[in-house]
C-alpha cells in the first residue's frame, strides 16, 4: 500500500444538541480516489468541512503524513496540502481565471514593496494548467469567472488545487447542476488529478458518477461510517444503495 496521507481518528462534531459526526475514523492513501456516499444529512459535508478547516471538530484528531495537525482555518488546511472544491463558493466571479488561480499566492514582479503582479507569468501558467485539466476550448486566462460555465468553473478550481501541489483534493457534490458533457469533464479532471499523483475525496449523490472514478467507496449513515472498503469493481450499485439506506441489515 502507498503512503498514508490523511488519518482521522474518532472525529466528532456536534451543532448544539445535533450530533452531525459521532466519532469517525477515516484513512486516505496517496494517489487514491475515495467516494463518500450517504443520504441527505448523513454527515458527509460536515466530515469534509472538518477536514478542510471550515468547521472545528468537537473531538478527535487529524493526522497528515503521520503528524497530528490543528485545523483551525481553511488556510491551515491549504497549508497542509488539502484543497476543497465546492460548486460555486471557491471562486471570485468578478476576477479573471488567472487572478483566481493565484489569489492569495500572487507572483510579484520587481520590488516586493510595490507589489506589482507578474501578469505575464500568471497568464502563461494559467494557459498551461487549463490545457492540463483538459479544457479543450481556447479560453484566454483573462476571462472573468462569471463568463464560464459551471463545469469550466470546477475545472479552474481543480487546476488551482493541482498547481499548488495539494496532496488531497476534496470535491463536495461537484457535479450538481451540471449537464452530461460537463459532468464527464469533471470526472475526467478527477482522473487527471489521480494520474498526476493527487488523492481525492469525491462526494456525489449520483452513485453512477461515483462508480466511474473512485477506487474505494465509503458510506456514511447518521453521522457514522458504516462501510469503508467497498470496491466498486466487485460490488453492484444496488448493493451500495442498500447500505446507504440501511436496508442491508
Amino acid at each position, binding site marked *: 500500500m502507498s503512503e498514508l496521507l490523511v488519518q482521522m481518528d474518532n472525529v466528532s462534531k456536534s451543532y448544539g444538541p445535533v450530533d452531525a459526526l459521532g466519532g469517525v475514523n477515516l484513512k486516505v492513501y496517496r494517489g487514491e480516489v475515495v467516494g463518500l456516499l450517504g443520504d441527505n444529512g448523513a454527515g458527509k459535508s460536515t466530515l469534509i468541512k472538518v477536514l478542510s478547516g*471550515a468547521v472545528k471538530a468537537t473531538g478527535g484528531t487529524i493526522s497528515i503524513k503521520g503528524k497530528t495537525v490543528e485545523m483551525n482555518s*481553511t*488556510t491551515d488546511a*491549504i497549508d497542509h496540502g488539502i484543497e*476543497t472544491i465546492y460548486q460555486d*463558493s*471557491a*471562486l*471570485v*466571479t*468578478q*476576477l479573471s481565471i488567472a*487572478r483566481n488561480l493565484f*489569489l*492569495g*499566492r*500572487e507572483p*510579484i514582479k520587481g520590488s516586493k514593496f*510595490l*507589489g*506589482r*503582479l507578474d*501578469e505575464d507569468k500568471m497568464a502563461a501558467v494559467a494557459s498551461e494548467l487549463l490545457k492540463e485539466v483538459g479544457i479543450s476550448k481556447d479560453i484566454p486566462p483573462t476571462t472573468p469567472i*462569471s*463568463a*464560464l*460555465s*459551471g463545469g469550466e468553473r470546477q475545472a479552474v478550481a481543480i487546476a488551482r488545487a493541482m498547481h499548488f501541489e495539494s496532496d488531497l483534493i476534496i470535491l463536495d457534490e461537484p457535479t450538481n447542476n451540471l449537464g452530461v458533457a460537463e459532468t464527464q469533464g469533471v470526472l475526467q479532471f478527477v482522473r487527471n488529478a489521480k494520474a498526476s499523483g493527487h488523492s481525492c475525496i469525491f462526494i456525489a449523490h449520483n452513485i453512477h458518477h461515483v462508480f466511474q472514478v473512485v477506487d474505494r467507496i465509503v458510506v456514511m449513515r447518521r453521522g457514522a461510517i458504516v462501510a469503508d472498503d467497498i470496491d466498486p469493481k466487485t460490488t453492484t450499485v444496488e448493493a451500495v444503495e442498500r447500505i446507504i439506506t440501511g436496508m442491508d441489515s
Partner: protein
Amino acid sequence: MGKLSKLLSVRPEVGPAILLVLLIVVFTSINPKFLSILNISNTLAFTVELGLIALAMTLLMTSGEFDLSVGSLFGLTPVIMWALFNGTDIPLELAFLCAIAIAVFIGLVNGWFVTYLKIPSFLVTLGMLLVARGTALYITDGFPQRTWNASGEWLSGFLVGDIQIGALRLYMSLFWFILVAVLLHYTLQKTKMGNWIQASGGNADAARARGVRVDATKIKLFVLSSALAGFAGVISSIRTSAANPNSGTGYELEVIAMVVIGGTALMGGRGTIVGTVIGIFILRLMRNGIVMIGVPGLAYNIFIGAIILGMMALHSWLDRRNQSRG
C-alpha cells in the same frame, strides 16, 4: 448592440465617458462660454477636493464597504489643525500631522467596528459621521477658524499654491489629485493589493479561504478614506481662507454618486479609478453647466438623481446579461 454591451461590461468606464462627452457637447452648444479657460480653472479648483475623497471611496467600495463619515472628516480635520495652530504655539506642519493622525485614527476605528465587530459599514460610518461633525462643532462653538495667517507658511503653498499659465490658473491641489489618481489606479489594477481589494468585495469567503487578509485590507481602505477626506478638507480650508466646522456637509452622498456613476459596483467586486475620474467630472460639469445654460440651480439634484438611476439600470442590465451566459 452585442458588441457594445460586451465593451460596456468589460470596461465599465465607457458608459460614463460617452455621457461626459455628450454633456460637454450639449452645454457648449447652448452656451459657448462653457469651455472657456476661466470656467475650466474655476471648475477644477473645487473638483479635486471632492475628487480626492471619491478616489479613496472607489477602492473602499470595490472592497464591498463604504464610508459615510467622509464629509464630517472633511470638516473636522482642518478645524483640528487650525485650532491647534491658532490656539497653541506649535508649528503648522505639526498641527497638520496631528490632524491627519486623528483622521487616520478615526479610519482605524471605522475599520475595526466593521471587520472585528461585524457591524455593517452603513451603520458604523453613520455613527462616525455624527461623532466627527459633533466634535468639530463642539470644539469651535460652531464658529469658523481663521486660516488667513497661513499665507506665509511654505506648507500652504505646497498644498494649495497656484500656478498661472496664461489665463489658466492651476492649483497645487490638482497635482495632488492627479498623483493620487495615478497611484490608486495602479494599485487597484496592477498590484497584489488591488487583487485582494477586488476579491474581498467580490467573494470575501472565497478570498479568505485562499489566505487573503480581507479584514486587514478593508481596514487599510477605511484609513485611506478618512485620511484623504481630511487632507481634502485641509486643502479646502486654505483655499477658502476658513476652516468651517460645517463644511463638507452632504459630501458623502455626492462622492458616492461620483463613484457609482463612474461604474464601480455598489456591492463591491468591481471598481475603476478611470470611471470615478469621469464620474467626478460629470457631476461637477452638471452643477456648473446647468447654471450656465440658465436652468435654475435648484433643479440640479433632479438631473443627478436621474443620472444615478440611469447608470444603475445600465450596470444591472449588463450584469444580468453576463450572468445568463454563465
